[in-house]
């Protein structure tokens, strides 16, 4: 049998020909994407998806995902691509409605890896109760060997009753997180070639729209939410402080960090506050809503370890300040770029 005409099932790696727009492209889409992602809006394979829309405002976001390795404990590039965009919509206060999925595949990617990642995309979308309604695939020549790059865009519907945004943050407001920080970034590092170490770390990658909806509909006056991805908790707090020209005091002893993550960060010379997360939000609420916000978070499985970690103050100059466990104080700044493990 001519190998180019062979069903994809007998080909174990993606080839450039899979991106040629011909029969192999059709097979790739039918057998490896639609088989797992199919739904009413995607099935016709038209050039765009038509979505019914209620009155009100639409929130639109996009993000591209690059991670080495593609699969890691607790997740893979597919899970973070769906969860990340769902979370970007959710922290804006929107209810996610639909996602697009763009895959840029390097030739040579094992087909079974692609299948696992698409299955993970499908499972995460189900978990988030959102559909992939349009998509695209390209195959590129082998370059870095990372294998797969993913872009997802998403639209969501902003209920007229929701008003979250940096402009609402005021002195005396209270800052919360929904659980243990730093797990994702440390997990990736623990499996990265040349740095790998044994641990039971798992990425926290998860769609948080359920948790956020619970918060927003639970009678809590939520002023601001942001997911603490790259740049970690420190990055989000620095954003709030800079944009509002307000200070934030946080208390080290109240910030949830698992003992494993604490030790891994210590070993690598990293500050857990600046390590990336994929399933954590920073949430600012009015002082008298702190308890109800905490309870609302803790009622959700992804918020069981939620904690109040600090408060906003009008102290000038605007700084993020950490009261350390040792009783000292220091300034928290966003990291500069790639976080590199230290040496001795």
């Amino acid at each position, binding site marked *: 049998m001519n190998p180019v005409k062979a069903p994809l099932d007998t080909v174990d790696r993606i080839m450039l020909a899979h991106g040629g727009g011909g029969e192999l492209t059709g097979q790739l889409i039918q057998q490896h994407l639609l088989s797992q992602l199919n739904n009413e809006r995607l099935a016709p394979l038209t050039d765009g998806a038509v979505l019914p829309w209620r009155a009100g405002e639409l929130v639109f976001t996009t993000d591209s995902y690059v991670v080495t390795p593609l699969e890691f404990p607790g997740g893979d590039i597919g899970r973070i691509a769906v969860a990340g965009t769902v979370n970007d919509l959710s922290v804006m206060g929107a209810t996610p409605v639909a996602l697009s999925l763009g895959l840029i595949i390097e030739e040579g990617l094992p087909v079974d890896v692609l299948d696992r990642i698409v299955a993970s995309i499908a499972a995460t979308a189900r978990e988030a109760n959102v559909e992939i309604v349009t998509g695209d695939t390209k195959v590129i020549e082998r370059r870095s060997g990372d294998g797969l790059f993913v872009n997802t865009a998403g639209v969501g519907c902003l209920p007229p009753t929701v008003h979250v945004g940096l402009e609402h943050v005021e002195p005396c407001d*209270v800052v*919360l997180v929904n659980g243990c920080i730093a797990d994702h970034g440390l997990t990736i590092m623990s499996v990265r*070639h*040349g*740095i790998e*170490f044994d641990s039971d770390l798992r990425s926290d990658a998860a769609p948080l729209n359920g948790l956020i909806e619970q918060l927003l509909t639970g009678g809590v006056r939520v002023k601001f939410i942001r997911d603490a991805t790259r740049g970690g908790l420190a990055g989000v707090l620095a954003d709030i402080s800079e944009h509002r020209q307000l*200070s934030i*005091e946080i*208390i080290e002893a*109240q910030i949830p960090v698992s003992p494993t993550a604490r030790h891994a960060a210590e070993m*690598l*010379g*990293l*500050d857990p506050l600046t390590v990336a997360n994929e399933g954590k939000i920073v949430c600012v609420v009015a002082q008298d809503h*702190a*308890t109800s916000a*905490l309870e609302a978070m803790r009622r959700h499985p992804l918020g069981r370890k939620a*904690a*109040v*970690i*600090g*408060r906003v103050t009008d*102290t000038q*100059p605007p*700084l993020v*300040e*950490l*009261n*350390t*466990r*040792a*009783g*000292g*104080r*220091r*300034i928290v*700044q966003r990291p*500069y*770029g790639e976080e*590199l*493990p*230290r*040496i*001795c």
Partner: protein
Amino acid sequence: MTPGFRELRDQLARLCNKISRQVQIMEVCGTHTTSAYRNGLHAMLPENLRLVSGPGCPVCVTPQRHIDAAIELAAENDVMIATYGDMMRVPGRLGSLEKLRARGARVHVVSSARSALQIARDEPAASVAFLGIGFETTAPATAATVLEAERDGIENFSVLMCHKLVVPAMLALLEAGDVPLDGFLCPGHVSVITGAEAYRPVVQRHAKPCVIAGFEPQQILLGLVHLLQCVQSGRARLENVYRAVVGDMGNRAALDLMQRVFVTADTPWRAIGVIPQSGLELAPGYHRFDAVRRFSLTLGEDEDHPACLCGQVIQGKAEPAECPLFDHGCTPLSPIGPCMVSSEGTCAAWYKYNRSAKALRDLPQSQEVSG
């Protein structure tokens, strides 16, 4: 604050009160520097106790000529470089390894010498050079890896030797005599290898107390309490508050490895100059693993920025903010001096945790926040 911390802080305050003059303690190691900043310890120390940083950040003391040599290896000899992450951004005369990688050179970040050797095994057609950076903590691992390369006949592996020794640098500082010091907080990790007795010459020859402590904030504060007790009593003692981990004689196996594979040599320290018998080179039997010899590299001179005070900073002679480049052209994003590069570098730690030290001191005392 937990009672343990409060007690240590109060003890420090009482001792400083009794001593009633400015006390200057040098924390030799970069990990102590970072831990002290990260845990906000400077903000809780008595006013007359000053912690100054020493020459114990391996990245900061690696001379520019070694960075240049690494860049030459990658750029001109098509050698794959394997390095600890902190070296990536250190500027040499021709740029940094990070910039070189962006231009297509093969530079890998590893967390151990063995990972570098593994790259050489995995890519037999490539030539892999490992940057051997660090003090007694990382040197034994480099030695063991060279032995492993020899045993397994891995000939496409070499080491650019930049390893240094801590105690000769401490002695050189004291012999220069231009930094007023009341004692040394000695590094836990290095001492695991060298043993506590390695600091005996510092105590005996120069009558400076040395206290070995771990890197947890409790350990640092406890070490400072012991140092201040020495200062108060006027007795230079060698003490070890990290006994659970550090013994008197060190790690025999690690020391034997180093002795077998390395010889000591006079070596240049960035911005300080040559310190006698303070560096490690491969012993003659292992010269074929020496990247400088294998690729006939010539180590040139350093051309540090004339205004850069890194050399002063790592000898405790200047604070980062005294450097005209600090935050004026030299930042962690675009470092000019090495102290701004490493996460253990004094300038980087200062920039990251203490840049607005005055603003921080002026903040009102915080109150507990509760849910």
